[in-house]
């Protein structure tokens, strides 16, 4: 009887130590829910959701302060993903925050640019390169298309250009049945 008691107490102590140790050792930094929401957001950092970036919006959703349908760059798919993650009802994008647009990149007209560095200060991902009084340019591969650099430019030399479809980024279309296909369907390029 007593041995059993000792064994149980011993076990309890041991497991307690193990648990206590692992709680310290494997401590999760930050809120995992925020990170998971942030992982769904498109990271355009445009602020259209009403927060100064994707992470603050994710934090607001996690706290229950913001709705899931405020991110236009994430589109409908983004809202669906958020609804799935949080186990809430899907709702269409809130038009107040803007409409989804085709993905674009900023282009600086290098002949007009006066080198004021205002756009550099606006860009949330450091995608603009340049120095004071020198011509600036956008690193297209890093630009998220957030449009934040467009408004600050005093000479209006920044324009947003949609990314054109090319053989490199082209996607097969969703198959649509034709009423009377002309050829065996498996050879169709895109219906």
């Amino acid at each position, binding site marked *: 009887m007593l041995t059993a008691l000792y064994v149980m107490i011993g076990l309890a102590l041991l497991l307690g130590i193990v648990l206590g140790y692992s709680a310290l050792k494997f401590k999760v930094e930050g809120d995992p829910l925020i990170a998971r929401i*942030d992982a769904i957001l498109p990271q355009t950092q445009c602020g259209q959701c009403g927060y100064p*970036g994707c992470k603050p919006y994710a934090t607001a959703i996690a706290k229950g302060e913001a709705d899931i349908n405020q991110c236009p760059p994430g589109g409908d798919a983004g809202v669906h993903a958020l609804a799935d993650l949080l186990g809430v009802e899907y709702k269409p994008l809130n038009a107040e925050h803007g409409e989804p647009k085709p993905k674009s990149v900023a282009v600086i007209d290098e002949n007009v640019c006066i080198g004021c560095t205002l756009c550099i200060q606006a860009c949330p*991902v*450091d995608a603009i390169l340049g120095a004071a009084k020198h011509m600036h340019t956008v690193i297209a591969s890093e630009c998220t298309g957030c449009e934040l650099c467009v408004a600050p430019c005093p000479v209006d030399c920044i324009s947003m250009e949609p990314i054109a479809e090319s053989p490199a*980024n*082209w*996607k097969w279309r969703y198959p649509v049945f034709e009423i009377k296909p002309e050829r065996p369907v498996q050879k*169709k390029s895109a219906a």
Partner: protein
Amino acid sequence: MNAIVNISRLLKDRLAKTGLSRFKGGVHPPQHKLESTTSPIRSVPVPKYLVLPLRQHVGNVSKLQVATGDHVLKGQLLAKADGQVSAAVHAPTSGVIASIGNQLIPHPSGLPDISITLESDGKDQWIERQALDYLAMSKPELLDHLREAGVVGLGGATFPSHIKLREDTRHPVRTLIINGAECEPYITCDDMLMRERADEIVRGIEIMRYLLDAEVCAIGIEDNKPEAIRAMREAVAKSEIAINVIAVPTIYPGGGAKQLIKVITGKEVPSGRLPTEIGVQCFNVATAYSVHRVVNHGEPVISRVVTVTGNVAHAGNYEAPLGISISELVQLAGGQAEDGDLIMGGPMMGFNLPAVDVPVVKATNCIIVPSAEMFPDPEPALPCIRCTRCADACPVNLQPQELYWFSKSQNLEKAREYDIFDCIECGCCTYVCPSNIPLVQYYRYAKSEIIAQDRAKEAADIARERNEFRLMRIEREKQERAQKHAQKAAGAKAETGADNAVEAAKKAAIAAAVERAKAQKAEVVAKNTEAVSPRVEAEIAKIEARRAQQPEPLRQPEQAQLFAESQEAEVTSASSQVESLQPLSKDKQPTEEAK
């Protein structure tokens, strides 16, 4: 159903005799190979204009090496490989670069891509060609040569060959398999190449074997090509290395790399892995041939054999210069090409060309000009009845009906989970489906959608990182600024410290003066205090006591302290004075401080 069971049993018996394995599934579509094998490979006159896309291979777009107006010779480098996974582009004839810009390319999208247009000067003049003594070269050097010569897999995948020919110490290649199976209906370019140029192919295989140091070397040819098998057997008999020519059973898709490897070696390449991981590497016969042309003749890849068949007067194989317009080639074969009509590749895995005025590229193995009789209109698609015939036919052991369901409902994560990326788009499932569902189209859609999503995710991750870095940088700059302020404040304090020192030095001087005065005073104090009468002694004590009450003795500890301070201050003042050479302002401050 019974017939199918019988056939598969028969097949198993035969395989048991030959010692080959077989892969699961597969179908037997009508071959249609005879039409294009009646005449030898025909050469094609060089046309006036050639269009050479810079993206003819898997990997990075080649880097342009010429400008509009340049005169180039046949075989001259036009664009070089950019990085390792890339291949070079060469001039298929001599002439002038007419333009460089977007041109339509043979792609299911029908979109244009950057291409070089070469205007032939009609002379077809070669650059200086030099055969390589490859046994005397180091392997990396030889691989670089192949990269410079634009050698890619000519079976249709167009993966740069020099990468597959690199020796990998982690996964040494023990078995080299040369793919001459050519399982897809209508296509006969490899068949004709083996029949006519068997010796050259074997030379190429010897070079590949040397590069990979493979122990075993085998050529797999489907048994519906007896002439090719015979020609290859004769050629390997003359070779110094042992190469097996293996007749594999004709069953579609027996020419798929993983399927052929399974048949010949009996080994299964695991899902999502490369054949090298089980010690096997696989190349197309046409690739072996181009390796031979590069190494033994110094000729880069500037032409390829293309099967033109179907509704044409002279169906057959044509050795076409890369860049010739496909409609021109079809006309040469006595056919008519209409936009959206032609099929590039075979009927099972190929695609409809949205435009016909596109160039022949390294991937163009076959052009089919269809007619209404050859490809009658399919029955309209019906709902899936879950008969699982597609699963029986799938050579990769997938569940096509499930993949169809997930792709159709755009449940992409599920499709990925069900290994949609193992699908080789062979079309067996579509071929057997009794409901006529265009299954492969759904898989292509789902795959490209998943790839696009993955890319977007990658871009988002980079953007998040850059944004976080920016926020961190801003924070750091703020801190640095704060620190600078703090430093400035500290600097000011250090200055006052220095002033204190000056002050202290002054005080010390005063203290020293006081000390001196005291000493003088001490001298003045009467020395004859010994041996005096008690009355006088009492007098002295009284006077001393009175003196002790005077302020001077009180000041003494203060003086000692001041002195110590002055000692310290000398050190600090020396250094701080160097730092801030402003003795004038300093002089003012201490007075304030002192107050």
